[in-house]
C-alpha cells in the first residue's frame, strides 16, 4: 500500500508540475514537451487504478498522435520563441477574461465535487460486478460481438473522411516531369540519338 501511495504522489506531482510548465514555459516547443510529460503521467495514474486500457489509449492516441502533431504544427508555424506579453509589458485584456472563465470553471468543479461528495446514493448505486478478466479482454469480448455494428460503422466513417480529405485537397500537378527508371535503363543509342544535317542560318529545333 505504501509503495502504491509513493507512486501515486510521484506521478501526481509530475502531472501537476508539468501542466503548470505547459502554460508558463516561454518556449512553445518546451510547452508541448511538458504536455507530453503530463499525458504520460496521467496515463500512468490510470494504469495504477486498474484502467490499463485507458492508460494505454492515452499513451497511443494523445502522446503518439496528438502531441506529436502539436509539435509539428508548433515547429512549422515558427512560434517557438513567443513573447510572453500576458504578464509583462503593456496591459492586456486577456487576464480579466481568463479570470472570469477560471472562476466559472472553479465553481463548476465545486458543484461537481460537492454533488459527488455529499450524495451517497450515487456511490451505493454502483452495481458493477468485478471479475478477474482484464479491461482490455472485456472490451474485446463485446467489441467484436455485440457492438460489432458500431465498430464497423466507425470504420466506415473514418474511410469516408479519408476519401473526403483526398477528394478535397489532392491536386494533380500538370507538367511535372517524373523520373522513369525503366525507360531510362532501356534506352539505347539507336532510339535516343538522332543525326541531323544542320543547315546554315536556320539551325535545328532541339526539344519542344
Amino acid at each position, binding site marked *: 500500500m505504501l509503495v502504491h501511495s509513493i507512486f501515486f504522489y510521484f506521478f501526481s506531482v509530475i502531472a501537476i508540475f508539468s501542466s503548470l510548465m505547459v502554460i508558463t514555459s516561454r518556449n512553445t516547443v518546451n510547452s508541448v514537451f511538458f504536455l507530453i510529460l503530463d499525458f504520460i503521467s496521467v496515463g500512468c495514474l490510470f494504469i495504477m487504478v486498474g484502467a490499463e486500457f485507458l492508460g494505454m489509449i492515452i499513451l497511443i492516441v494523445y502522446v503518439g498522435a496528438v502531441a506529436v502533431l502539436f509539435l509539428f504544427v508548433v515547429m512549422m508555424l515558427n512560434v517557438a520563441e513567443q513573447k510572453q506579453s500576458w504578464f509583462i509589458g503593456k496591459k492586456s485584456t486577456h487576464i480579466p477574461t481568463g479570470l472570469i472563465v477560471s472562476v466559472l470553471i472553479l465553481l463548476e468543479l465545486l458543484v461537481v465535487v460537492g454533488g459527488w461528495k455529499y450524495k451517497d446514493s450515487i456511490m451505493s448505486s454502483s452495481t458493477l460486478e468485478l471479475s478477474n478478466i482484464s479491461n482490455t479482454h472485456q472490451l474485446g469480448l463485446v467489441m467484436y460481438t455485440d457492438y460489432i*455494428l*458500431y465498430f464497423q460503422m466507425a470504420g*466506415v466513417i473514418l474511410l*469516408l473522411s479519408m476519401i473526403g480529405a483526398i*477528394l*478535397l485537397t489532392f491536386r494533380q500537378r500538370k507538367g511535372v516531369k517524373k523520373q522513369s527508371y525503366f525507360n531510362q535503363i532501356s534506352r539505347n543509342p539507336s532510339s535516343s540519338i538522332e543525326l541531323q544535317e544542320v543547315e546554315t542560318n536556320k539551325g535545328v529545333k532541339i526539344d519542344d
Partner: protein
Amino acid sequence: MLNNLNILLPEIFLTLSIFSVLMIGVFIKESFNLIFNLSSAIILFTIAIILNSSNETEKIFLDSFTRDSFSNFFKILILIASLFVLNTSKVFIIDNKIGKFEYPIIILLSILGMFFMVSSNDIILFYLGLELQSLSLYILASIDRDNLRSSESGIKYFVLSALSSGLLLYGCSLLYGFTGSTNFDLIADQLIQDNTGAVFAMVFVLVGLAFKVSAVPFHMWTPDVYEGAPTSITSYFAVVPKVAGLAVLIKFMFIPFSNILSEWQLIIIFISIASMILGAVAAIIQKNIKRLLAYSSIGHVGYALAGVATGVISGYESSIIYISIYVVMNIGAFSCLYLLKKDGEYRENIADLSGLSKKQPLLAISFLIILFSLAGIPPLAGFFAKFYVFTAVIEQKMYALAIIGLLTTVISAFYYLRIIKIIYFDDSAISFDPVKNSVAKLSVLISCAILITFFLFPAILNNVVDALFIN
C-alpha cells in the same frame, strides 16, 4: 446471431458494393461514367432487396437495429429519391466538370448513413448514422472545390452542423445519464415527466434534429448552402436528408419521447409555426431560384412538423405523406433547373425565366404544375399533402396552428404565383439552349404525372403509410 444477419442484408450489400466500386474507381482511370452507372445499379438492387425482405419487426445487436415496415418504407423512399436526383443531374455534373468518381460513392455512403438513422433503435447507432450522413454532406457541399462559393457553403455547413451535432450528442449523453440506457425502448420506459434531467436532454436532441431538417430557428445555413453548392448537390440536399431527418424525428417522438408528449409538443408547435412563417415571408424577396427553393423547403418542413406536433399516429402519417409528396415536387422542380442552360451556363435567376412560355411551352407548363402543387392548389398532390396535415391538426383541436398554417399557405402562394406570372406574362429576355438531358425531362414528366393524377388514387400512398405504424 449469424442467421439473423439477413435483417441487415440491405446495409451489408450496400457497404460491400460501396467498397467494390471504390476499388474500381481507384484503379481504373477516368471511370466516372462507369462508377455512376454502377451506383445506379446498386441503388436499384438495394431497392429490390428491401422489397423482398419481410416487413415484420425484428431487432438485432442488443435491439439496437430495427427492421420494420417503417424503416423499409423510408429506405425505399430515400433510394428512389436518390436514384432520381443522381440520374437527372448527370449531365449537369459533367457540364460543370465536377464529375469525379468519388461523387456517386459519397452519395451512396450518405445513403448508408441514412439507412442506419431510420433503422436505429439506439442512440449510439443513430448518432453514428447521422455522422456518416452529415460527413458525406459536408464533402458534397464543397465538392466543386475550385469554386469559391461551393467551398464557402461547405465550410459554413460543416461549422454549423458540427455545432448542432455537438448539441445533439450532449443531449444524448444526458439522456443516457438520466435514463440509464441508450436503447430507445428502455429510454421510453424511464422518460417520464418527473425525470426533469431527461426532459432537459430531450430539448437538446430536438435542437440537433431541427437543425438537420433545417427548421426555424436553426435554418440559417440553408439558403447559403443551397445557393453555394452546385445545383446537383442542392437538389440532393433539398430532398433526401430531409426525408431521413423527418423519419428520425418521428421515430424519436414515437418511441423514446412518447411519454412526454406535453413537454415536446409546444416546442414542435413553435418550430413548425416559425418555419411556416419564415418560409413564406423570406422567400418573397428572393431573386435566385435555388435560394427561393431553400426558403420554400423551410416552409414545407414547417408543414410536415405540424403533422408531427399533433403527437398522434394519424398526425405522423399525415406528415409522412407530406414529405413523400414533397420529394416528388422537389425532384420535379430541380429537374426543371437542369433544363435552363444558356451559353454553356446553367441559369438560376428568376428574372431569366421571363417569357419562358413562348419559347418552351412544355417546360413552362411543367413549371406551372410543380409550382401550383408547391403552393398547394387543388387538385394537385401538394394540396392533398396540406389537406391531410391540417385535417390531423384540426382533429386534435389545435386551431391556432391550423389557422397560422393556412395563412402562411396563402402568403407563400404569392411567390409561387409570381414565378408563374414571370414565366407567362413577362416579355421574354433570353431563349435557353436545348439541353440533351432526357432523364431530367423524363423525371419532370413523371413528377408532373404523379402530381396531377394523385387525386385519382390517393389510397395507394395512404394504405402504405397506414401500415407503417401497425406493429
